[in-house]
C-alpha cells in the first residue's frame, strides 16, 4: 500500500479504490473517500454495507486488500502507532474491562496517552456523572457506549472516528451526544461518523456519504442530496374530497388525494406556499390540519438504497 501524497493540504482522509474482503465476502468494493479538515463527515448505509470495515481500515485495525489509504498523511496499517496518538476512536460495540469504572477507564487512557484531561468534565459532557463509579459490567448498554465516547475524547484528537455512537441510546442521550460532536467540531476536530439515523446525519454533518454493498453511492451535503434526490415541497391539508375538488380546479399545481382525508399539493418554490394557503382560505371549506413538508434525508436514503436494490444504479 503506497501512501497517498496529499495533493490538497486540508485533506485529512484520502481513500482511493479501497477493497477489503473477508474470505469470499467483499465487504468494501473499490471505495473512494475524501474528508476535509474540520468537517463532520457521515457515512450512512444499511446493515452490512461495509461502514465498520471501512472505518477499521482507516483506523489501522484492518489491512486493506488493495487501494490507497492515507489518514493524516499516514498509512494507517503501517504507521498505526504514530497515527493512534492523534486520533480518537469509538468503536461499534465498545467493550471495556468488566470490573473497571468509567472514571478508572478515563484515568487509564489518560496515563496511556500521557495526557491529563479533566475526567469530571468528560464524564459530565457524555452524561456519565451518575454512573462514574459503577463497574463496566453493571452499566446499561447506552452507558457502556458513552464510556467509549468518553475514551475517544481523552487524547484531544485532531481526528475522531465514531462508529454508530448513538445507536441504542434514548432520545435525550442522543441529543446529548450530538452536542458532544458539535463541540468537538467547534474545537477544530475532524469527525468521521457512521450512523443509521438519517436525522442525525442531517443535523450534524457537513457532508454525507450513502454507502451500500461496499461502495459509496452518493456523497454531498445533506441539503444538496435532498434537493437532488428528494421531491419538491408539499402542502398537506386534511379537508376531504370537497377540498380536493376545489383545489384541483383552483390551483395550477399538482394536487393529489392521499387518502379520504388528506390532500397533497406539490409546490415548486417556497413562495408558492402562500398561494396554496390563500386558495385553501378562499375555499371556505373546513379543514383540520395544514402543514408544509419537505423530503428528509430519510426519504432520499430509502429512495437511493431501494433503487440500488432494484439494480437501477450501478
Amino acid at each position: 500500500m503506497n501512501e497517498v501524497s496529499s495533493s490538497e493540504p486540508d485533506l485529512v482522509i484520502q481513500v482511493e479504490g479501497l477493497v477489503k474482503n473477508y474470505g469470499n465476502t467483499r465487504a468494501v468494493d473499490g471505495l473512494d473517500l475524501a474528508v476535509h479538515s474540520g468537517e463532520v463527515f457521515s457515512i450512512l448505509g444499511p446493515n452490512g454495507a461495509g461502514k465498520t470495515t471501512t472505518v477499521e481500515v482507516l483506523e489501522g485495525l484492518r489491512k486493506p486488500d488493495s487501494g490507497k489509504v492515507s489518514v493524516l498523511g499516514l498509512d494507517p496499517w503501517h504507521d498505526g502507532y504514530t497515527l493512534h496518538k492523534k486520533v480518537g476512536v469509538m468503536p461499534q460495540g465498545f467493550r471495556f474491562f468488566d470490573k473497571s469504572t468509567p472514571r478508572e477507564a478515563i484515568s487509564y487512557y489518560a496515563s496511556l496517552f500521557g495526557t491529563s484531561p479533566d475526567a469530571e468534565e468528560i464524564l459530565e459532557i457524555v452524561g456519565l456523572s451518575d454512573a462514574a463509579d459503577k463497574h463496566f459490567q453493571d452499566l446499561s448498554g447506552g452507558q457502556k457506549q458513552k464510556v467509549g465516547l468518553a475514551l475517544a475524547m481523552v487524547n484531544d484528537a485532531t481526528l475522531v472516528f465514531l462508529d454508530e455512537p448513538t445507536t441504542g441510546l434514548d432520545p435525550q442521550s442522543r441529543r446529548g451526544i450530538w452536542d458532544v460532536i458539535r463541540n468537538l467540531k467547534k474545537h477544530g476536530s475532524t469527525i468521521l461518523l457512521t450512523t443509521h439515523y438519517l436525522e442525525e446525519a442531517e443535523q450534524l454533518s457537513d457532508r454525507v456519504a450513502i454507502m451500500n454493498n461496499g461502495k459509496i453511492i452518493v456523497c454531498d451535503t445533506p441539503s444538496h442530496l435532498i434537493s437532488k434526490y428528494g421531491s419538491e415541497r408539499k402542502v398537506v391539508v386534511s379537508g376531504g374530497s370537497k377540498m380536493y375538488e376545489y383545489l384541483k380546479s383552483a390551483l395550477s399545481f399538482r394536487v393529489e388525494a392521499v387518502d379520504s382525508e388528506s390532500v397533497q399539493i406539490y409546490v415548486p418554490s417556497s413562495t408558492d406556499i402562500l398561494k396554496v394557503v390563500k386558495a385553501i382560505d378562499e375555499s371556505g371549506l373546513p379543514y383540520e390540519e395544514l402543514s408544509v413538508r419537505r423530503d428528509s434525508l430519510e426519504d432520499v436514503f430509502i429512495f437511493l438504497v431501494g433503487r440500488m436494490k432494484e439494480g437501477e444504479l450501478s
Partner: protein
Amino acid sequence: MKPRRILADFNVYRREFTRNSAALFFSLAFPVIIILLFGAIFSGGSGGTPQLYVQNLDTGQLGGSFTTALNQTGALQVVLVPSNASFPQYLLDHSYSAGLLIPPTFTTEAMAGKPENLTIYTNPADASSQSVIGITSAVINAFNLKLEHTSPLLGLSLKSVNEKSPSYVDFLIPGLIGFSILISPMFSMVNISSEYKRTKLFKQLSLTPLTKGEWLVSKILWYLILSAISFIIMVAAGELIFHASVSITYWVIPFMAMGPLFFVSLGMLVGTVTKSEESAGIVGNIITFPMMFLSGTFFPLSVMPAWLQGVAHIFPLYYIINGLTDTMVYTNYTGAEVDSAIVAVLCIVVFMAAVTAFKWRED
C-alpha cells in the same frame, strides 16, 4: 517500554483481578485448602519399588553378597554408588532419599566375630523410607542367622539424609507453591487472551500507545507479586499448622521469578494460537492438568511408576518444583542450579514464542 504505561495497565489488571472473587479464591485460597487437606490425609502409603543407593566400601566378599541379597528381595532396587563418592553428601547432591553405607571393614570384622553396624540414610518424609528400613533389617537378620554367631553380629544404624529430617509437608510446600505458580497465570491468561480477542479489547488497546510488550510485562509483574504472596502464605501455613521446616534462601528467587514469567507466556501463547475461547480452554486444560498432577505437586515423584516419572521430566513445572524442593528441603544448590538453567531456557523459548505469535489486530 514506558514504566508509566506498564504501571497504568498493571493497576487496571490488579483491580480486575482483586475484584474477581473467583480469581482470588483460585490463586490464593485454593492452594491453602489443598495444603490443609493433603497435609492431613497424606501420612503414609507407597507405590513402586523404592530405590536404595548403596555404597559398598567393603574390601571383602560379604558386602557384595549383602548387596545382591538386598536386590534379590525384589522389594528394593539397589543402585550402586561409586566408592569415591562421599556419603551422605552424595545423596544430598542428587536429592536421593535412601542410601546404605557398607564400611570397608565389613567382611574382616564379621569374620573376626565382632559386631558391626551398617548405616542407612533415609528421608523420614519419604513415604517409602519405612519399607526401605524394614527390608534392609530383614536382610540383616537373614545374614545374622547365616553367620551363626551366638549374638547377632550385624546391626543397622539409622540416619537421616539431612539433619533436619523433612516431613511430608516439607515436600508439599514447594509442590504447592509450584501448583499456584502454574494454575493462576495459566488459567487467567488462556482465558483473557482469547476473551479479549473476541470482545475486541485487544483491538481497542492497539489504538492506544500501550504496546504488546508493555501489556505482557504488566501481567507478568502482577503474577510475580501474586506468586510471592502465595509463597508466603504457603510457607506460613505449612510451618504454623504442620510444623514444616523449609529453608528459604535466595535460591528460591530464580524459580519464583521465572515460574510466573513462564506460565504467563505459555497461557498467552495458548490463547493466541487457538481460534476460539472454547478451543483455548480445551488446549489449556490438556496442557495444565497432566502437568498439575504429574510434576510432583501433590505427592513425591518417587511414588509413581518409573515410566511416569520419566513422563514428568517433559513438564516445565517439574523442574520448578524439583528446583524449589532442592533448595527448600534438601538445601541442594547444585541441583537447583541445573533446574534453574533448564527453566531459564524454557522461559526464553516460550516468552519469545508468545511475543511473536501475539497480535493486537488481525489482517
